[in-house]
């Protein structure tokens, strides 16, 4: 798994670190980690519905923050559990542009093993950075 939950950081919350060879891989890993906080068996989520997400931000970490907010939004507004199918991130004139295709289905308590409801993404020690050849992110979710 390209993400790891941290034992000792978030006590009432849940913290994780994720990595990727490039930004699309990193964003996909962070999205899966966030969904994995809510649902244990990600493989049980079937791709019945599609949601396209397009975002723009001048900071890469806030682009990730906005992206996670979208996934949390669909979880509450439509009870949709979404996984990233394709994601493209471009940089142009000091702005980052994200175009993602996500697929999933509404939560079904008989098939999806629930864990915790994610309330929000906090900015506590939140970062996205490039270390050598890999991208790394640290996230603390409010539970």
């Amino acid at each position, binding site marked *: 798994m390209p993400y790891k939950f941290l034992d*000792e*950081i978030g006590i009432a919350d849940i913290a994780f670190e994720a990595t990727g060879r490039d930004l699309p891989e990193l964003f996909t890993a962070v999205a899966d980690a966030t969904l994995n906080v809510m649902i244990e068996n990600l493989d049980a989520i079937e791709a019945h519905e599609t949601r396209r997400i397009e975002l723009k931000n001048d900071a890469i970490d806030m682009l990730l923050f906005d992206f996670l907010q979208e996934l949390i939004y669909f979880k509450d507004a439509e009870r949709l559990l979404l996984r990233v199918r394709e994601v493209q991130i471009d940089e142009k004139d000091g702005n980052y542009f994200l175009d993602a295709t996500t697929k999933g289905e509404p939560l079904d308590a008989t098939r999806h093993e629930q864990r915790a409801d994610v309330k929000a993404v906090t900015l*506590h020690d939140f970062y996205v950075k490039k270390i050598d050849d890999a991208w790394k992110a640290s996230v603390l979710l409010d539970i």
Partner: protein
Amino acid sequence: MGIIDKVRKVSETVWEIPVTYKEGMRAPARIIATEKLVREITAVMDFQSAASRQWMWA
């Protein structure tokens, strides 16, 4: 050395973390706890890196 060593005992149930503890603190943080609890609380804090939590906990 843990946070507990920097905590000043104000009374049996009031414990104070001075502003010198971390950069960015503008006021001392107070913890209302028994000695047993303050030891538990600071042990957890030792694992956490950021300064911000202290004022939230006080």
